[in-house]
């Protein structure tokens, strides 16, 4: 009895905390359905008196969030593909025993984690422009994927390092070369890590701001959702209800993706930690 009472007391204490935690998000969704007047003067109430879809219409068509959503999908998928291909291959190579300079390479990789994006953005921009990729999202995706590789490489490295040597030797006995062993034997085993890395980087790319901002500054048609948000800020005033609707458009797909893939994500992290 005492235990039940104690648990209920904890619930009573934690439920208000939980409401405080989710309130801003719920308020954002609610604001997306309000008129500017109600949003600015209506206080903290969550239910709109005069619900409207006009904010979504404005965000989707006038503020071009339809284009930005397509751009964000392209950008995020490209980042994920780049990260998966490069990180898994690098992780596999670095996990092999006897690779000369392996420790130095890993140390350099880890060291690069501590360099803020701001310091490297100009050379990255110049490099991508020099490659002739300045007018498309591939250039921005390359810039985003580069620094994002370190943790995935380490995850793949840890995972492949834990795979028994015998498996690889068996593949070699069956006539598979280095690349084939990696592609057809090792990579399919790494599904949990692939899932984790894909999800982490998809979320990261979806929410990315700095790199897409810099790379789309001169090409507004390439903007992603995060950058497109800025369009609601005027010189003197801000279209707050349009911004709230745009935020809903931006955040709902990523929440859905996360809900679908959360099991993979948790398993992947747990697997990576165990290995």
């Amino acid at each position, binding site marked *: 009895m005492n235990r039940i009472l104690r648990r209920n007391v904890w619930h009573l204490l934690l439920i208000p905390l939980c409401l405080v935690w989710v309130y801003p998000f719920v308020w954002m969704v609610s604001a997306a359905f309000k008129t*500017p*007047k109600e949003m*600015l*003067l209506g206080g903290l109430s969550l239910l709109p008196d005069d619900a409207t879809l006009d904010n979504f219409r404005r965000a989707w068509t*006038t*503020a071009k969030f339809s284009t930005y959503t*397509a*751009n964000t*999908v*392209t950008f995020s*998928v*490209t980042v*994920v*593909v780049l990260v*998966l291909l490069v990180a898994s291959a690098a992780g596999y190579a670095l996990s092999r025993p006897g690779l000369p300079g392996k420790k130095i390479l890993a140390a350099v990789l880890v060291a690069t984690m501590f360099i803020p994006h701001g310091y490297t953005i100009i050379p990255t921009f110049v490099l991508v*422009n020099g490659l002739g*990729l*300045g*007018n*498309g*999202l*591939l250039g921005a995706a390359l810039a985003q994927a580069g620094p994002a590789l370190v943790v995935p490489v380490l995850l793949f490295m840890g995972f492949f390092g834990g795979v028994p040597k015998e498996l690889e030797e068996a593949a070699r006995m069956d006539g598979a070369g280095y690349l084939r062993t990696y*592609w*057809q*034997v090792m*990579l*399919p085993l790494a*599904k949990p890590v*692939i*899932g984790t890395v*894909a999800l982490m980087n998809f979320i990261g790319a979806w929410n990315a701001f700095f790199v897409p*901002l810099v790379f789309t*500054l*001169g*090409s*507004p*048609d*390439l903007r992603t959702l995060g950058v497109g948000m*800025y*369009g*609601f*800020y*005027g*010189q*003197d*005033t*801000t*279209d707050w209800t*349009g911004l709230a609707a745009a935020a809903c458009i931006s955040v709902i797909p990523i929440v859905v993706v996360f809900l679908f893939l959360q099991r993979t994500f948790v398993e992947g992290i747990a697997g990576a930690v165990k290995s």
Partner: protein
Amino acid sequence: MKIRPALAVLTGAVALALSGCNLVGGSSDSGAAADSVTVTVALVPDPPGASEFYRQQLDEFEKANPGITVKVVENPSDQQLNAVELMFQQNRAPDVFRAQDDGMDRMAARGWIAALDEFVTPDFLKRFPEGTMDPATSGLHRDGKLMSLPLVWGQWSSLRVFLYNEDLLKKSGFDGPPETWTELEQMAAKVTADGRGKYFGYAPFSAKAPATEMLAGTAVPYSVAAGGIDYRTGKPATSSPGLVESVELHRRMQAAKVMTPGWESWDGSRAFKEFAAGKLAMYPSPPWHVAEIRKLSPEIKLGITGLPVPASGRGAYLARKQSFSPLWSMSSQSEHKAESWKVMDFLSSDAFHKAYYQKFGTLTALEGAWKTEAEKNPDQAAILKVAEETLRRAPNPALASKGGQAITQALAAKPDLKYTDAAVSSIVKNQPFAPAAAKLDKDLQAFLDKTSAELKAKGQEGSAKDLTFAGWDPLKDFTPGG
């Protein structure tokens, strides 16, 4: 062994790329007809609703000009200049772009702005109020050449008004707004006391306390209130009694808890929200707040008047430094200058300005497009009256000489020499402002001396002399060269 997820993702990415989702980029003008010239216009979708408005207007333009397609590139206000600069650097410059005030100078300094004189006709100039397109005072000319066209009314950016809630003042027994700073202090204290935390008598508009500058502009020459230099002498004057007293007035009200708590973190639009919600009784403001208050609270009893002046009497009028603020410029790299001019001509047409006024209620550069209608609108009529009563033409070193331009630009690049932070600190920490002002004056003088010497060493003009207009009386209209 199958690797379905990786293949699916790869297939998805390829499909996205092939479906034209901007992965590797393509021709930006692919939508334009082969026999049509595309003019790219980089603008700011401001105020809210401007995106649709511009598109509708430019669609009308395209109908009237079948050979021209207008491609609109929108950038948020904060990013516009950087974005346009980047477009120039990537050789994809827009033909027409929005660059205001310092931004226009920044673009012009890089040689990216085309002079418009070859396109301008006497009929075009006649659209603007008489005398406003004089190169010496227009604000649109540099070195005698027309470099930009305006959008809003020339006096809009210089004007400051005092807004008050008639109902809240009446509740405290006041029939009208304060006319002096002393009355303001007394009335604000009474209203705040009567409000008992539900509403407050006064707040300084935003976190940087520009209200100190606005009120000081009725006591000391605008140049003192804006940048700490007295253009009558060319010398630092942050410690002028009028400016110091404006800060002290706010310090006293803050110490007495008269001002709305939390104003220290307000952005530029918070004051009108507080006012529209009936939580703020009075504040000095730029005129655009009036329309925002009306949008949020059409029924509020909003009074609009001139700023209160020192009890000892007015020491200065608000300054009209130039007839217009620059806004639309043409790229010097445009390959379609004639067509670009047609777009600019349209953006400066009576029809466009009338439509802009009707859509946003903004008073535009072509007075003929709105004056009759504005005089019938009580809010706008009040704004026009305040402008008439409180604005006077003032000297502008940046327009007067190259040296003036150089030295004002150098000063603008040193915001730490402006008194704003020291003033806010004094108000918030309840410390006297005079010592900080005296130190700023010394720092300003040192900076002026150093900058003059550096300019001289480079063989350029620019000294305190270029900031000196000895005959200027801030209570009268200034005549350049007069």
